[in-house]
């Protein structure tokens, strides 16, 4: 891979245009590592400005009525933890602090469920440390588990949600017995999918259209997605098929920011107009986490990329100029 650099001597322009791959990789590696360590040491908080689609998502999630049910459809594994992981943490914090009940399912991979369990455990530990009541399985949330054939399951949900999840059971801690999930306090009032307050999908792939095509008209679907899928999904938000959208790492930071600042009665983020806020903040709680921990590193990596492109172009310009002479 290393390019041969003997031969005739290169001009500055040519050197700028032909940086060695390995050299480029090394710089990126160093810059990102350094930014992470700096953030860890100094607790840097980079400001941001939430986008309308993130705000819509936050409004819905923050205003789940007490005891309202949210379905969390998790479809990410550790490989997209950098974006979906932070989103999951923010989602769980918002739901638990608003007192919403939720049920977790997946049809992407069985391990998504295990990963989601890990996140729930972590946020619960955090609540315990902060002296808040823990979220208990069966009473406050449910794990519906993995569905091997998602499209068919969703089609059945569209027709009859009780039919679709009828075989799913969970342990009732009072008796220690396995019982139908529809007997648990989470789902006992859900007769039809319309009774569910929102359906949140966290994914690194294009699973959202499958959901929207089947149940998008019956329930508010919110998509938390990696930046790659964002432009495609923005169409769905604009056409009203999606009610909220969270765009990758920056969307995750925006959620954390909204949790910190809230939306006031006038609809201004971080404002303090009198009256009932559109979506309140959680003052004093741990709002900044994974998103903010990565945000400075994202800034430096993007800046480095822009610099590299600029250097290449300056090199080209210098070379062209010397050729013209």
């Amino acid at each position, binding site marked *: 891979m290393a390019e041969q650099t003997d031969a005739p001597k290169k001009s500055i322009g040519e050197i700028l245009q032909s*940086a060695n*791959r390995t050299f*480029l*990789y090394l710089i*990126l*590696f160093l810059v990102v590592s350094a930014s992470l360590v700096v953030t860890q040491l100094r607790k840097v908080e*980079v*400001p*941001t*400005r939430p*986008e309308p689609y993130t705000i819509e998502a936050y409004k819905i999630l923050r205003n789940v009525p007490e005891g309202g049910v949210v379905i969390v459809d998790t479809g990410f*594994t*550790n*490989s*997209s*933890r*950098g974006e979906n992981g932070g989103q999951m943490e923010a989602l769980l914090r918002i739901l638990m602090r608003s007192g919403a009940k939720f049920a977790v399912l997946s049809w992407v991979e069985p*391990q998504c469920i295990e990963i989601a369990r890990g996140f729930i455990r972590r946020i619960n530990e955090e609540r315990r440390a902060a002296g808040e009541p823990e979220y208990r399985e069966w009473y406050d949330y449910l794990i519906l588990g993995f569905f*091997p*054939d998602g*499209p*068919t399951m969703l*089609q*059945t949900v569209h*027709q*009859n949600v009780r039919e679709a999840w009828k075989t799913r059971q969970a342990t009732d801690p009072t008796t220690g017995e396995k019982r*139908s999930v529809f007997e648990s306090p989470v789902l006992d009032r859900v007769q039809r999918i319309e009774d569910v307050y929102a359906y949140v999908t966290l994914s690194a792939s294009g699973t959202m259209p499958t959901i929207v095509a089947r149940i998008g008209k019956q329930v508010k679907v919110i998509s938390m997605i990696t*930046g790659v899928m964002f*432009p*495609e999904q*923005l*169409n769905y938000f*604009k056409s009203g098929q999606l009610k909220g959208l969270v765009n990758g790492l*920056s969307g995750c*930071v*925006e959620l954390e920011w909204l949790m910190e600042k809230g939306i006031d009665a006038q609809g201004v983020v971080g404002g303090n107009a009198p009256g009932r806020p559109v979506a309140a903040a959680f003052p004093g709680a741990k709002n900044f986490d994974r998103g903010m921990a990565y*945000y400075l590193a*994202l*800034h430096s*990596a*993007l*800046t*480095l*990329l*822009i610099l*590299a*492109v600029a*250097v*290449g*172009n300056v090199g*080209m310009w210098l070379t062209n100029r010397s050729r013209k002479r």
Partner: protein
Amino acid sequence: MIPVAQAAQPLSFWQAEPGSTRMWLLILAAVVVGFLVVAALLRAPTRARPVIVSTVTFLGGLYFVLHFLWPTAQDYSPDEVPRNAVEGFSFWLQGTLPSVTAFAQSLGAMLLGIGIYSLLSIHLGRLLKRQKDWFFSLVFTLSMAAMILFGYWDWISRLTPEGARAAAETPSVFPHFAKDLLFGGLFINMDAVMFSIIAFFIFSAAYRAFRIRSVESTILLGTALIVMLGLMGGVVVSQDSLLNSIAQPGESVIVDSLRLPTIRSWIQDNLQSPSIRAMEFGLAIGGLAMALRLWLSIEKGVSH
């Protein structure tokens, strides 16, 4: 809970009591009959072959085409009696859908063995003949064997109903840990590593390719730059405060439209959305046409 009454319900010809001798005999008979059909097919004349393949393909597609064309009975519920023949057929279509999808998935899943055969023929061949890189073929074979061994061992000892009952008394620790180390410790991490390695490649590809050479590449580069800057909260907020010193938000239309998120979302809303959508329409129609040609077996080289 399933009502007990259902157990007393008479079984149709296609069903059997689970675990009964009749069930196993029928399963055996089905397999034998199936293989007899295969044996008969071995003797099919060359001319008939494409016809057989096209017919099967057509029938497979026809099922969903009927789903598409046949009027769908409103509010289908399996415990209701259809009111007329049209509804009856629609009921049949809707009732069989889960079985048909499960059939396609099971059949597709069983074909994995063909792929694994291809892999093993390469690696075992190399290993047995001690060809170049045989050591790495050994690594491959051993990791695969270990994953299968501990994958199933863990599943049987923990995740099947019988295993779960046994595990409640004496938890089987070893397979659980071994599988988790192979799967969670190595495999999932390797997945994440390969995914994250793309960052380096983006960096080098962008450095090499993004030169202002033509109108097209300039446009591509310019838009990418605006979007990237718009994703950096720090840049957005500082640009905001800079513009605020000229005019507060809402005071001047011109100043407001210079803000990065405004430009970015304008581009995404009015140029990116429709252009990507138009491209998607093209692809959608291409896919539709290909599906049509495949269904009717008029695509050369596939069914004959």
